[in-house]
Structures are given as structure tokens and as C-alpha cells.
């Protein structure tokens, strides 16, 4: 292998690594959005779920260090992770109760819960730390990184697996990849996945077939909360090691866009989430050049809008081509 090729490969690997890292929270949240959408009640509160999960994770890991000073050091981040997942899932559960039991409009209630999460996290943060901006004054923990030191010398692959400076990838980056496979498989190959999709596709038919539609929708919303919480915990305990006000920064809504963009399919959704992650990486790289920061910040939203438009155009052209092909077959027969 020539040296040029290795160098180019290493750069490509670095970009891929950065993209994966930036996309991990969106991947988690978009999988959550997908599963709720397929169950027929899309979770608009992904943003709030991520915020609450990140907050609960960071605060719990910090306080577990204060409360249990004798506990082994590796335990604190995992306690935080568990608390984050629990809190985020609970928020999604709240959405489920408001929508399924109390008849609240799904979208409006979702937006309401996002506002609730935004207010509550800042309120509690100000109460606990006296700071409304971030929890920088607390010592919180990050989830561990996985490294493959024995592969460090292998060109390209070493850079891909061990990342910048050989620090490895956060365990939740692998978690996102695993969740993608797991969700894709569950939706396609399990009875639960089939029933969930049936409940979303045609609730009356599913009900007539004897499925517990309401329970399935509870499951869809709770699962979406669990998945999005994974993204939130990554934000607070991997991407950064603290909680910031409004930390999710629109990623929950980007995740919703990814679901539509990906044609409501697991792989498409994850690819769309990776595209959004890549857009932020490109924006960050451009920021190093002389491009004004304002223009850089416009890139991710413009990419999102452009992607939504392009996918629709593509689908339309494909449909037209199919129709033309159908006509041709009819005429020739």
C-alpha cells in the first residue's frame, strides 16, 4: 500500500469517526422516532427526552461520586447512565399517558413536554449548582471509551477503530450501532415488530385482529424514550462531560427529519442521521477556514431542508418511471 493511499485513508477514517461521533445522538433519537412513528404515534418529545436524560445522567453520576465516595470509580458513570435512561423513558411515558389516556393531541403535547424538559432542567440546575448555564462546577463522569490497542499500528483500521489520538470511541457509539441492528431486526423479524407496525399501519384492522393496540403504542412510545435517552446520555456523558442548558440543540427535531427522510425504514433513517452528523462535521471544518460562523451554522438546517426536498423529488421520479415502465409493458403485450 502506497503512503499516499494510507494518508488519504487515515484522513477519511478521521472524518468517518468524527461523523459517527456527531451522529450518535441523532442516530439514537431517530431510531426512537422511527419506532414510535411505526407504532402510529410519533414522539415529538425526543428533544425533551434527550435533555432530561442528559441532565439526569450527569447529575446522578456527579452526586453518586459525592454520596458513595467508597464505591468503585467505574460504577458512577453507569449509575448515571441508568438514571438517564430511566428519566428519559419516564418523560416518554408521560407523553404516552397524556396522549393515550387523557386524549391530548400528540404533537402539541410533545412540544409541551419539550418546553417542560427545557424549563425543569435549567430550574433544577440553577437550584443545584447556582448556575443557569452548565454544570461545569460539578465533577461528573463520562462513560468509558473502548479501545483496541493491539490494532493501533494497523494503518487506516487503527485510526478508524481508535479514533483521534488513539482515545477510542465511547461505549455508546458502539451502542448506537448495536441499537440500529437490533431495532432493524426486531421490526422485521419478530412478532412484536410485526404487531407494532400493524398497530401503526391500520389500528382498526389490528384491533379487529385481536391486538392490544393501546398497549403496543405504549410500548412504542416507551421504547422511543429509551432509545432517545441513549442519545441524551451520550451528549452529557460522552460527547461532553457536563450538562449545558438546551444541550440537545434541536437534535431531537433533526431526528424526526431523519425518520421522514429515511422513508420510515431503519437503515434509511440511520443513513439520514449520519448525513446530519456529517453536516455538523463539515460545518466545524469550514469554521476553521475563513468562512463566517453564521454561514457555517446555516449548513446543517439547509442540508436538512435540501435533503427533504431531494428525497421527495427522487421518489416522484421513481414513481413516474415505474408508471412509464408499466405502460410500456401493457402496450407491448
Amino acid at each position, binding site marked *: 500500500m502506497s503512503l499516499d493511499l494510507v494518508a488519504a485513508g487515515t484522513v477519511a477514517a478521521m472524518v468517518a469517526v468524527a461523523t459517527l461521533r456527531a451522529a450518535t445522538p441523532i442516530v439514537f433519537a431517530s431510531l426512537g422516532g422511527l419506532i414510535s412513528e411505526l407504532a402510529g404515534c410519533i414522539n415529538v418529545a425526543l428533544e425533551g427526552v434527550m435533555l432530561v436524560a442528559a441532565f439526569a445522567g450527569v447529575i446522578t453520576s456527579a452526586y453518586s461520586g459525592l454520596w458513595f465516595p467508597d464505591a468503585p470509580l467505574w460504577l458512577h458513570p453507569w449509575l448515571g447512565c441508568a438514571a438517564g435512561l430511566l428519566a428519559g423513558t419516564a418523560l416518554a411515558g408521560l407523553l404516552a399517558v397524556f396522549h*393515550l389516556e387523557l*386524549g*391530548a393531541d400528540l404533537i*402539541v403535547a410533545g412540544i*409541551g413536554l419539550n*418546553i417542560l424538559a427545557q424549563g425543569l432542567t435549567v430550574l433544577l440546575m440553577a437550584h443545584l449548582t447556582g448556575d443557569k448555564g452548565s454544570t461545569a462546577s460539578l465533577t461528573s463522569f463520562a462513560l468509558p471509551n473502548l479501545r483496541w490497542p493491539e490494532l493501533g499500528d494497523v494503518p487506516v483500521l487503527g485510526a478508524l477503530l481508535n479514533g483521534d489520538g488513539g482515545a477510542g470511541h465511547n461505549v455508546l457509539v458502539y451502542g448506537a450501532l448495536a441499537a440500529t441492528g437490533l431495532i432493524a431486526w426486531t421490526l422485521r423479524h419478530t412478532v412484536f415488530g410485526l404487531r407494532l407496525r400493524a398497530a401503526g399501519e391500520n389500528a382498526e384492522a389490528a384491533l379487529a385482529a385481536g391486538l392490544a*393496540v393501546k398497549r403496543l403504542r405504549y410500548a412504542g412510545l416507551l421504547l422511543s424514550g429509551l432509545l432517545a435517552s441513549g442519545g441524551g446520555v451520550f451528549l452529557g456523558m460522552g460527547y461532553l462531560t457536563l450538562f449545558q442548558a438546551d444541550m440537545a440543540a434541536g437534535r431531537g427535531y433533526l431526528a424526526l427529519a431523519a425518520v421522514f427522510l429515511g422513508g420510515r425504514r431503519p437503515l434509511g433513517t440511520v443513513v439520514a442521521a449520519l448525513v446530519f452528523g456529517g453536516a455538523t462535521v463539515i460545518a466545524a471544518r469550514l469554521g476553521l477556514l475563513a468562512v463566517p460562523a*453564521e454561514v457555517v451554522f446555516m449548513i446543517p438546517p439547509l442540508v436538512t431542508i435540501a435533503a427533504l426536498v431531494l428525497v421527495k423529488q427522487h421518489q416522484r421520479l421513481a414513481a413516474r418511471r415505474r408508471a412509464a415502465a408499466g405502460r410500456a409493458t401493457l402496450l407491448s403485450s
Partner: protein
Amino acid sequence: MTPSREGARIALAVGAALALGFAIMACVSDQPWAALRALLTGPLPSIERAVDGRVVVHRLVRFGAWLQDATTLTLVGLAIAIPFRARQFSLGADGQLFMGALAAAVVSLGVGDVPAAIALPLAFLAAAAAGAAWGLVAGLLKTRFEANEIVTTLMLNVVAVQVYRLVVGRVLNDPTAGFITTPPLPDAATLAPLIARTTVTAMVLVAPAAVAAALFLLRRTTLGYEIDLAGANPWFAVRAGVPVARATVLAFALGGAFAGLAGFHVSNALLKRLPIDLTPGIGLEGIVVALLARGRVGALPLAALGYAYLRVGAQAMERATDVPREVVLVIQALIILFVVSDRLAPLALGLARRTGARVRARIGGRAA
């Protein structure tokens, strides 16, 4: 539901949200009662009789803040409520407001030395046009490309804020100001306060006029009827020959025009110059206002007054006590959740028994 029942339901929801908000305040504060008092009486001016018998009015500033906040909220409420008539969840009032404010400032600074009779209407129209154009984009994305409007309007908000910062920071920047801002807008293009020592201007009258205009448009014109039909049953509307796509796009644009006027209010009445760090977010507050009005355009000013009262009270509370104003975000969220939960109020009111059978039937029906 009858209007009075509906009103009672909303009052109940707001009361419950306030009670829960107070419970949270009691958890995070050492002085919850003082905080609650500040929250509930903050916006009112205090009227005292001085020693020499004259009547002295204190704290007019906050009273003015209440009225001008209600003005902004009414306008952004319209920006949410009109697309909602066509069943579109536009969250784009923020971006439209920024574009409106920017356009108003650019025109005000650009027209040069002209009398107010020319400068003011020009800036006013520029703001409305810019907001409408920004709304139009979201509408076209929705009708031409079926792009989900929640996502596109939020993305367009980000773009608008960045365009605003680009223009204010790099084109209109006044180097003598000491912070990054546009030069002060010329006097001819700004509105003078109606009440001394406050920022209440003629815009406080424009807001109800805008509501009246919107009401007229929705109730008395073909376009308004088409927008309502497109929202009520788009399938039927298409079959009946109603141009649903056009009505939807125009609903977005109309909403945008009102948000643009809110931007005019911010730039030419409140601040009279535009700082680069104008805070986004007021546009989203329009959702609460539109919800409190239950989509009734005529009820928007009342809802805006009520909600602005709460917001200004929260600022007073933050200054007077140790409770951060974010508690209002929580109360706001609870109001949203309680107001949209159709089945919550009957349960809470103890009507559950009387309507029990019907509610049970509806739960079964909704699950389907």
C-alpha cells in the same frame, strides 16, 4: 363545548398549572410565598397617595412591559393560529419575526431623511412582507415537496437567526456603539411611547387591529373559507374544487406577515436599534397563546394579555427572589399539557361519574 364551559376548563387548567408550578417553586426556593406574590402582582403598577395628596403611580415600567409583551404575543399568536386553521403546525414565528425585524431596520436605515409619514409605513410593510416571504417558503416546501412543516419551520428559524446575525454583524454594524448592533434607527422611522416612561407605543393598538383584520379575512372572505376547509377536511376540499395547496401556502404567508409585524414592533418600537444577540424563542411562545385561545382568533388578545402577565410577573419574581424565571417555562408547559388533555378536566371536575360511560366509550374509540 360551549364557550363558557371551555373558558372554565381553561381557567381550571391554568389554575392547576400554577398550583403545580408553585409546588415546584416551594421545592427549589426558600421564599416560595414571596416568589408567588411577585409572580402574581409583578406586572401591576402600585398606586399610592403621597403626603401632599397627589396620586403617585410606581412601577409603570413593568405595566408597560406587560402591554408591549402582550402586543408581541398577540402577533406571534396569529402567526401560529392562522396556519393552524389549515391544520399546519407552524413553529416558524421566530424566524419570521427575525426576518421582519431585520427588514424593518434595513428599510428604516436605508430610506434616509424622509418624513415619518413615509418612513413608518415603508418599514411596516417591509417587515410584513419579509415575514410573509419567510412563511411562504415553509408553505411551498410543505405543499410542493410534502416536507414536514414542524421540521422545516424549525430549520428555517435557525437559518433566519443566522441571516439576521450575518447582516447585523457584518453589514449594518455600528462601530461606534461599543457592542455589535445596528446604528440607532432614525426618529422618523420609530414610534414614540404612548405612556410616558414605558415602551408602549401605537403598536399596542395595531395588535387588536391585526386580530380584527385576521378575523375578517377568515370569516368573510373566500380565502378564509378555503383555509378553514383545507384544515377541516382536505380530501373533501380537493374534491369540491377548493385550491387546497394555495390556501395552505397563503395561510403560512399570512401567519408570517403577522410575525413580521411582531418583528417591526421589536425593532422600530421597542429597541429602536437591533443588537446582534436578540434572543430567539418569543416566536415559540405564540404556541401557548394560540393554544390558550383554543384556535379562536378573536380570543388571542385575551390569551396574550394573560400569558404576558405571567411572563412579566416571572421577571419581577426573578429579580425579587431566588426563583429563576425558568419556572414560567414549566408552568407554560403544564398549561399546554392540561389545556390539550380533553379528558383531564371532566375527570378532575368529578363529572367522571355522569359522563363515565361516554368517556369509557371514547377511550375505547381513541385506542382504535
